Each structure stands twice: as C-alpha cells, then as structure tokens.
C-alpha cells in the first residue's frame, strides 16, 4: 500500500490479471447470492483502466465483461461498456436495458488495475486498484436520475493518457498515466455543489450516499455512512458499493434514498433517487 497525498492506494498483485480477478469476484457474488446465472440479462463494465481485459493480457478490447460472461456461463446476458461512468448513470442505463429482457438480474462492474499506469503521486490523485460489483435485481422500485455538470470554471478534469512519446516509460511497461491537477479552488467548488445537492435531498428527508474521491471531498460529512475513517480514505470511486454492502439491511427498508456520484473525468454529479413504493 502506498500513501498518496490524500488517498491510500491499494495495489493488486501484478501476477493476478484483471480478467482473472474480476472473474473470481463475480463468481463469489453469484455464489453468495445463490442466483441462476441464466437470469443475468445485462453486464455493464465501467472501467478507467484498459488492460488485461482478456486472457491475451495486453488487450483493451473486447472489454472484461465478456470474460465475466464466459466464466459465469451467463448465456442470456448482453455485455457492453460505458467508460468512466458513475454509479448513478450505470444503474439507470442497466435498469433501462432490464426492461427489454425477461431476465431478473444485471451485473454492474467497476474494474480497475493500474499496474501499467504511472500514478500522480505529486498531486495525490489516485484511484486504488479495485473491483466493485453491484448485482441489481428487477423490482417495482422507481428510479429518477439527474445529472449536474459543474460550473464552467471548474475545468480541471481527471485524465487517463497513453505515454506514447515517453520511451523510458514504455520500456518499463508503464503505458498509461492517470492524473488530475485539482486544487483548493476546485475542491471548494466541487464541495459547494455537493452541499447544494445533499441539502436539497435531505430537506426532502431523502437519505443520501455520496461518492468519496479525496479527503476534502464531502467535507460536511453529509452522507449516511458508517464506514470507518480508514475505509473512507482508501475508497475513491468505490464508496457507494462499499456503503451499500455494509448498510444494505438499513437502506432496503427505506421508502426513498439517493446515490450521489461524482465523476472527475467529466466533472459532474449524478443523483439517482430510488423510491420503493412509487408505481
């Protein structure tokens, strides 16, 4: 584990390829939930990392979702990718696709392994190697999604680039670089918008789960989370599934709740409100 400026970075074992890692976690989630894999209708992957997506190892396409489908033998699934997409939009897109299939489940994957990536330790922006998976089941809950792009002056976006012109890095197998030059003004603006969103939802008594990207993000502790400090400092984009896993018994009985996801690559918040008893 290396300590970035604001976020702990967990690195996976280099010899454990991404496709193998994802496969083992998906098998675990299917077993734990004891579901029939033929009832999986859609598999959506939203990665930033584009490597080790197949057993050929050096591939970025086809996506890792196909390997998951093959290893699970999920014969009725349709697989596609929405690159660097937040949980709110992924869940909404999956929900829409579920209406076109008789299958009961959707498998959503966030899969990142940055072994071939030069990380931005100077600035501290880092996303831990990690896999988050949500298994969605069809229900009569209603979803309402709204996306809120940040103000135009917050133009510093995270980026993922190819080190095409850096021969030294290519020689060391560091093909990519991940960076985000955020600064106090950007942080202030990101949090300002988050406060507007969460205050609005909490004013309507809607409990909120919020993505946590860096230490000063969500400074007013507005989310309904019982994650420990160590977990919160290491999660980056994995906050929402981690919270859901720990607190699901509490959330599943609520009339309404909302996921607020931040996307530093496109600079927007998505707000997905889930209501149990509407329609």
């Amino acid at each position, binding site marked *: 584990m290396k300590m970035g400026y604001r976020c702990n970075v967990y690195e996976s074992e280099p010899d454990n390829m991404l496709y193998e890692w994802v496969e083992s976690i998906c098998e675990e989630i299917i077993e734990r939930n004891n579901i029939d894999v033929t009832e999986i209708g859609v*598999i959506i992957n939203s990665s*930033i990392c*584009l*490597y080790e997506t*197949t*057993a*050929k190892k*050096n*591939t*970025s*396409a*086809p*996506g890792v979702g*196909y*390997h998951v*489908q*093959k290893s699970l033998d999920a014969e*009725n*699934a*349709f*697989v*596609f*990718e*929405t*690159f*660097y*997409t937040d949980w709110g*939009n992924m869940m909404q*897109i999956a929900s*829409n*696709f579920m209406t*076109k299939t008789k299958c009961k489940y959707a498998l959503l994957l966030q899969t990142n392994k940055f072994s071939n990536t030069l990380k931005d330790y100077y600035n501290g922006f880092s996303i831990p190697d990690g896999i988050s998976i949500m298994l969605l089941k069809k229900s009569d809950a209603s979803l309402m*999604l*709204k*996306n809120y*792009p940040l*103000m*135009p002056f917050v133009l510093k*976006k*995270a*980026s*993922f*680039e*190819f*080190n*095409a*012109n850096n*021969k030294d890095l*290519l*020689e060391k*197998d560091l*093909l*990519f670089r991940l960076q985000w030059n955020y600064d106090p003004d950007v942080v202030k603006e990101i949090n300002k918008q988050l406060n507007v969103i969460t205050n609005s939802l909490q004013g309507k008594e809607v409990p909120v789960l919020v993505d946590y990207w860096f230490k000063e993000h969500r400074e007013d502790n507005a989310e309904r989370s019982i994650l420990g400090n160590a977990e919160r400092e290491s999660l980056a984009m994995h906050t929402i599934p981690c919270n859901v896993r720990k607190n699901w018994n509490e959330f599943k009985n609520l009339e309404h709740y909302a996921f607020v996801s931040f996307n530093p*690559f*496109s600079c*927007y918040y998505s707000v997905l409100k889930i209501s149990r008893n509407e329609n």
Partner: protein
Amino acid sequence: MKIKSAIKSVAISIPQKYCDNNTPPFSEIPNVPKNWERLWGIKGRYMIDAALGESCSVLAKDASLKAIDKAGLAVKDIDLIIATSCTITGWSDKNPERIFPGLSDYLKTELQCSNATMTLEVNQTCISFMVALQIASDYVEAGMYKNVLVCSSETFTILADFRSSSSTLFGDGSGAVVVGQSENKGSMLAAYYKSIPMHNEIATLQWRPPLGNTNKEEIRPYFTLEENGPALMQTFVPQNVPVVALKAIERANLSLEDIDHFVFHQPSPLLLKMWAMGIGIKSDKYTNTVEKYSCLSSASTPLTLYTALKNGKISPNNTIVIAGASIGWGFGAQVWNIENINF
C-alpha cells in the same frame, strides 16, 4: 402522455484521400492471401491525412455539426452527447495521447455546447452506435433529455498494423445522429440483444509492437485478428445477426414484410449476404457501404443509414431494422418507425 424518441437527422464526415488495395500502404502489406480481397470483398477505404488536418476528432466534430444543423437545432440545444470510438488513443487533434475524457467531452468543448450538456462514452466496438442509440432513446423517453447527439467516429488506419493482412479491412470516417422527441409516429418499436463470449479473443485490440518487432518503445494499440479468426467467425457470426433481427421484429409484433429496409453494420459484403439470406431478404432490402468504404467499426452504421437515405432506400414513415455484430462478441437489432430523418 408517454414520450417517444425519434432519429431527427444523420450526417457523415469522410476523409479526402481514398486508398484502394493497390495504393500504399495497403499494396505493401506482406503475405496477403491471394483470395483475401475476394473473401472479404473490400475494394478500398478513405484514410485520414494528418497533413490535411484530419483526425478522428475533427471528423467527429464535422459530422456532429452537420447532424445538429440538419436537425434544425443549434449546439446549445444539445443536452446530452454520447460518443463511441474504438480509436482508443490518437483520436484527439488537441492531445494525441488522450484516452479519457473521451470524444463526448471533446465534442462538448469544441462544439461550444452549453455547460449543462451531459456526456457519456459507450463501447460495444462495432455495435457501439446501436448501444448509444438505445441509451439515447431511453433517456429521451424517460424525459431526462430532449436532444441527444450520438456520434461514432473511427480512424482505424491508426490502429492498423500494416504488417498484418487484417489492416485491409478497416477505414476511417465519422457519423452522427440527433435523437429527439417524436412528433408523429416515430419511435423505437423494439430491440433485441445478445452476447456470445465463447471466442472473445479471436479479434482484439492489443497494446504491442508491430508484428515482427519486439521493441517496447514501439508499443501502440493494434487491431489483431488471430489466424483462425475468420474461420471461427464463420461458425457463429453469420447466424446470429438474423437471430437478433428476427427476434426484434417479433417483439415489435411485425412481420418481415413490414420492414422497408435493413441497415446493417458493415464487416464484409459476404457477411451482409449471409445475414440477408438468414433473414430472408433480397439485396434491394439492405445497403452495402463496405465495398467502397471498408468497415468503419462503430461509424459504419450511421454511414449506412445516411447512404440508404441518400439513395432513396428509406423514406419518411418507413419501418427499418438496424442490426449488427461486434467483436467479443455482441449482436443487436432495433426496429424503428421513422418520421423524417434529415440528412
């Protein structure tokens, strides 16, 4: 009243330079099998020329501006951009090393869209355009967005390893549509999708040096077709596009006779023929763009839609099927009632 979605416009942007198979660099590819051109049926393709200022992103911007204009809209009216491209790097004229944020974010900035415009990046390789069209339609019908720009842009010639025969299969180009709220009878009537991952490694995008080279400094993303790839493709690709097309038609409660035209993804003339035979339609019911333009991956479908409209194969109030296959492998079909697509 329930909102329905409709394709409002389509536009394309194609590079200036045309290369047939006897033009370098395609004439210089080593060890091309003698029957390769006859087997795949691709006679040439348009190819970007950086000296002319052409790139994947510039083609995308051009196609998008035309599509917005043909839809009778201004860029400020676009509230969601969904972009697709297999050209994973080297696509941006502003930053050749950029991967993410992707083409949708580039278009938002370069078209000078409103700050409120949302962006999404979708990938299902050759049928990415169809998946993007589905997401656009769903978001419009949910009332989230009114005018969605879907742009697919590809410059596969920069992913081509010119030491491999498979580099002859692809070309460059861009296509864009605007999806908006239906004003008459336009709508996506039904869709059907499936994936078959058994041979997910026979056609891949690999980060590697060119064939015959082990120098890591030369690593780039290259489309890579395994030697047994074409033979294995024949065992499942010809059958499954007809399967999804007929399923989608059935879901729309229509029969084959109700479909005015088929817009297929364009991998090769031979596959188009096999798909048509499997569905049970004659050659006048579908449009072939692959012989002239080669396969443009996700951009092939909007290019073929545009060509079919231009050639009078699709008219207002027609019912069409859009269908195709992608590596990995994915298969999809959509049945659309067309209002009036401006092109």
